[in-house]
């Protein structure tokens, strides 16, 4: 079960499993972002390359206007995947 919603402080809250079947649902939220936004991974327990693709496309679009995604509460499996994909080079991760 994957869920994505906006938090009280304007952050994107992800939970569950972000796989290829969830791309459209995720893009519906990420495509609406126009300013620097934190993405909270605390409750996300899985991500595949399809999810990474959504994050990368959003980061490219936001960076073009001087904004960015900040990836927060990243740990465990998600951190391992970000490390393999060298997301540290293109995202602010904490």
């Amino acid at each position, binding site marked *: 079960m994957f869920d994505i919603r906006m938090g009280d402080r304007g952050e994107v809250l992800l939970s569950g499993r972000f*796989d*290829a079947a969830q791309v459209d649902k995720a893009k519906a939220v990420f495509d609406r972002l126009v300013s620097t936004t934190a993405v909270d991974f605390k409750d996300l327990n899985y991500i595949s390359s399809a999810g*990474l693709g959504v994050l*990368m*496309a959003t980061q490219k679009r936001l960076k073009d206007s001087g904004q960015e995604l900040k990836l927060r509460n990243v740990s465990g499996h998600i951190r391992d995947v970000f490390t*393999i994909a060298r997301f540290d080079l293109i995202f602010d991760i904490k």
Partner: protein
Amino acid sequence: MEKTFKRDIGSLEKAFGFIDEFAAKEQIGNSVRRSVYLAVDELFTNMIKYHPANVNDITIVLEREADTMTITLIDRDVEPFDIREREDPNLSASLDERKPGGLGLYLTKNVVDHIEYKYHNRSSVITLTKKLRRDDV
């Protein structure tokens, strides 16, 4: 354990359930389970992507030896596609130059210990081996 899945992105959820069932039976821990999710997810998605009009289902076989787990995906009536020969993406490139293509197979190569590919009778058979450490089970 062996199970065949409809060639549809919606089958991923069922494939994850199949992995969960196997992991519970074989007492395989969450770390390995997530690596298996990732490898199956990426390869299954790739098989759909490269042969979208194929009507054949995709078979997944999960097996456990003493200290290894093997994951086999079988795709029938397809052109050969040896993932070992795919070039790795350039992960040092700038954001503008980075492309999402190839990332899934790169992740797969990094979460398993060995990959075998066989092609016969127009079937692709990809076998992944994952070593199990003492704290994985």
